[in-house]
């Protein structure tokens, strides 16, 4: 320890008058009393009871001398050398990515980083300038080349960790641009190390230092366990009747843990599952039969870990877009009624004479599904899925080789999903078309009966196979689309009168419409990234309600609005012309969820040739502490000197209270 102002020690001479005054004061006032008989024993008792009694008269003097000593020390301005940043310009890059919200150091990593930055700034020489850059997905200069420590402190205090990732490229190029203009700059990165560095690193014209933040950040293999929901996707099934969710939970840690996953639909719990998570093995989960009318689904890990941000995920169910169906028919009451009852269908009935196959050009409006009901098939089949009922003639997909009289319908497989809830027993069919099973198809219902044998088709591959049995219902994928063929006319069987009919039709439509629906799932939105809102063309203003309830109004220009304030995680509601749509913003970032801090960053390449690695030192002054100590001693001395009054006061208060 050294002193800036050693001359102040001369003031220690003030101790002499204090001691002198004390001795003067010690000349006690003499008072003659009748007898000291009682006092003598009293003082003896006191001395016997309290060994420090003898010291008592000196305690005041001691306190006063100590106070003087600390005041003199404070005036002498002692200081110690401490390792710190020097130089003219300190450029601080603070990582504000999602992982900096981890609470493995309290209150969180960002606060810890801000404290360390504050300490660095305090140790700077008074003339040095400070630049503070907050880096997440983008770089944000909070304080630019300022000597105002107050504004730096305010900026550090106002730092908030976002939900974004951490790409240091922008921050580093910004910092190097600032550093290039300076004489002796130093760049300090305060981060947990879960960052993306530019490859290759640009050469930096300054010294660069990385200060790791996080529990055990100084050790090479720190482990900070964290569990995260790394995926949540929703899918509609069975003609839009039910909703299923796919969730992926990943554990970033070294030992297996158990967590409970809860699923909420519009805030109501709908499912829960206990998970045992193995380190770094994403655990996929599927939840079926979620309420189909839910406007949002939230998955949440019960309990707490060090990063709360990735313990929840949200998703918006895909909007069931109407399935365009062209029905080519001369009129089929059964079929039309059944189709009308199924939700999400937009059925257009076209007479076979008027039907024209749409052109295959992508711009043309084509139907998702075309149903041919006992009509002659056109030469060129339309695009999209096909459901063909009782074909009259052969087509390029299959051949019609005759008719079967009164076949008995038998399920080809007992566990056929398409025949779920469909009871075929006692089904009466007057006549069916004989269709040998083509290569691309599989039989769902087969015919049984005296003339139910089918000659194998031209291909020799299936000679010995049991496909010699004629199919009554066949499905498959041909020429890149799904095709189903029912070999009998509905009007010539009692199927439409049975409960099985609408069920079978729903199953078939579900099967046939899979591809049509795949495209309508909303794309996931990353936090901080702009999201394009598709709008109705007549919308002029859009109101976006953020997860925390705040609403933002946006003027819509040309039917497309880009919304960029997506820093919050959760469900955003977009309202335009009274129509609502939603989108979800989720973290889903393995880099941010793996929160174990890294003790070093690969920064070697970035260090400029001119920067040395000598450890610079700065003075740390101690006079404030000494002044505080003197104040404390002064208070202690006062309390001691007035202890009698204080005791009397205490006794008075006690009697008042008891009285």
């Amino acid at each position: 320890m050294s002193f800036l102002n050693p001359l102040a020690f001369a003031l220690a001479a003030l101790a002499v008058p204090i001691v002198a005054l004390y001795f003067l004061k010690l000349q006690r006032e003499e008072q003659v009393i009748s007898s000291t008989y009682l006092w003598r024993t009293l003082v003896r008792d006191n001395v016997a009871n309290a060994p420090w009694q003898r010291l008592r008269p000196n305690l005041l003097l001691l306190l006063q001398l100590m106070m003087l000593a600390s005041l003199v020390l404070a005036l002498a301005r002692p200081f110690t050398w401490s390792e710190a940043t020097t130089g003219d310009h300190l450029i601080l890059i603070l990582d504000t990515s999602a992982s900096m919200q981890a609470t493995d150091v309290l209150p969180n990593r960002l606060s810890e980083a801000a404290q360390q930055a504050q300490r660095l700034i305090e140790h700077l020489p008074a003339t040095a300038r400070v630049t503070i850059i907050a880096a997440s997905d983008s770089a944000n200069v909070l304080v630019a080349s300022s000597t105002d420590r107050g504004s730096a402190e305010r900026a550090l205090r106002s730092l908030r960790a976002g939900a974004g990732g951490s790409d240091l490229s922008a921050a580093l190029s910004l910092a190097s641009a600032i550093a290039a203009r300076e004489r002796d700059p130093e760049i300090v990165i305060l981060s947990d190390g879960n960052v993306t560095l530019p490859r290759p690193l640009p050469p930096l014209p300054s010294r660069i230092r990385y200060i790791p933040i996080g529990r055990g950040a100084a050790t090479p293999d720190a482990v900070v366990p964290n569990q995260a929901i790394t995926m949540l996707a929703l899918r509609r099934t069975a003609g839009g009747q039910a909703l299923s969710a796919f969730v992926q939970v990943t554990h970033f840690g070294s030992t297996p843990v158990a967590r409970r996953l809860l699923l909420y639909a519009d805030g109501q719990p709908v499912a829960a599952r206990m998970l045992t998570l193995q380190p770094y093995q994403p655990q996929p989960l599927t939840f079926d039969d979620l309420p189909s009318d839910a406007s949002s689904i939230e998955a949440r890990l019960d309990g707490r870990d060090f990063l709360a941000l990735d313990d929840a995920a949200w998703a918006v169910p895909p909007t069931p877009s109407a399935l365009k169906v062209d029905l080519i028919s001369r009129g089929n009451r059964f079929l039309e009624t059944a189709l009308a009852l199924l939700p999400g269908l937009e059925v257009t009935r076209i007479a076979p004479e008027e039907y024209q196959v749409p052109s295959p050009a992508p711009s043309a409006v084509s139907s998702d599904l075309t149903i041919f009901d006992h009509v002659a098939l056109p030469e060129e089949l339309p695009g999209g899925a096909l459901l063909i009922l009782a074909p009259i003639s052969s087509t390029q997909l299959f051949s019609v080789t005759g008719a079967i009289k009164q076949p008995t319908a038998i399920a080809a497989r007992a566990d056929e999903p398409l025949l779920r809830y469909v009871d075929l027993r006692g089904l009466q069919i007057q006549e069916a078309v004989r269709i040998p099973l083509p290569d691309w198809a599989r039989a769902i219902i087969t015919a049984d009966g005296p003339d139910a044998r089918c000659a194998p088709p031209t291909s020799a591959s299936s000679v010995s196979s049991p496909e010699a049995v004629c199919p009554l219902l066949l499905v498959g994928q041909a020429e890149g689309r799904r095709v189903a063929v029912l070999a009998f006319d509905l009007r010539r069987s009692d199927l439409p009168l049975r409960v099985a009919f609408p069920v079978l039709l729903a199953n078939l439509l579900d099967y046939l419409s899979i591809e049509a629906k795949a495209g309508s799932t909303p794309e996931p939105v990353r936090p901080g990234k702009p999201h394009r809102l598709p709008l109705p063309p007549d919308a002029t203003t859009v109101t976006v309600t953020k997860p925390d309830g705040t609403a933002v109004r946006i003027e819509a220009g040309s039917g497309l609005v880009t919304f960029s304030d997506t820093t919050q995680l959760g469900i955003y509601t977009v309202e335009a012309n009274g129509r609502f749509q939603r989108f979800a913003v989720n973290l889903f970032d393995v880099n941010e969820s793996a929160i174990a801090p890294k003790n070093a960053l690969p920064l070697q390449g970035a260090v400029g040739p001119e920067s040395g690695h000598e450890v610079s030192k700065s003075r740390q002054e101690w006079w404030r502490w000494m002044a505080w100590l003197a104040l404390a001693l002064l208070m202690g001395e006062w309390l001691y000197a007035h202890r009698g009054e204080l005791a009397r006061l205490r006794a008075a208060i006690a009697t008042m209270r008891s009285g």
Partner: protein
Amino acid sequence: MSHLITQPSQSPQLFSESFLRQLDQLVLVSRRMYYGQMPGERRSPRRGQSVEFADYRSYVLGDDLRAVDWNVYARLEKLFVKLFVAEEETTVHLLLDASRSMGFGHPGKWPYAVRLAGALGYIALAGMDRIRAAALGDGGLRPTPAMRGKRQALTWFGWLQAQQPRGQAYLGPMLREYAAYGRPIGPALVLSDLLDPSWEEGLAALCHHQFEVTVLHLLSPQEVTPDLEGDLKLVDSETGQAVEITADYDLLTHYRRRLAAWQEQIRSFCARRGIHYVFIETSLSLETLLFSLLRRLRVVK
């Protein structure tokens, strides 16, 4: 507290006439019978002339025939002499602590003690008792000759007023000395502040010599609740010994506790030896003390 030293009263008039008339009503209570030298008003262990019958005994030659109980002779034809309780004076010993410590207090202990001793002595004189007194102080005993009869009251008051609280009283040796020669023995009234380490020894000596001891323990209000403050050097008025204290709340609390313990010690000592103990704070008026407190405590009646 030096300003509290009180000069002995120069007034020749210790008590008013009316007060003396009130004192005439009082009698000192003695629980024991003592042999006296002169006839008086107290029952004595002797047989003598009074109206109170004591015993019979056989007539022997030389007995006064007037004392023969003729009624008994008529019945038994034997001569019996009727004996009566003798009524004699008793000697009341008034032992007044006249050490310098008695000259303190406000109201002063010394004037208080002088008036109390005067009143008690007057009561004894008025009750046909003999008094002997001694002032204990200034390195020795200052005894009085025996006084008897109301006529001696002025002598008694004069002697009292001539005394001054001086020097040191060694209660132990002085009381022992008095107990040895103070004859005839009788009730002994000790007026003292007992601020001397040897008080136990002195009182024990009096008891040992069959005195019926009553301790009138006088303390001034300043001694019961000291009004001291700050860092002080307390000097003993008798010995000149100094005690340095810092009179704070704690210490004064300790003092009060110590005083109470000391009083308790005196009280239990007195109780063990059959000594009457009366604690008197000098703020108590003499009238209240004599006509109320001492009556209640059966010191006077």
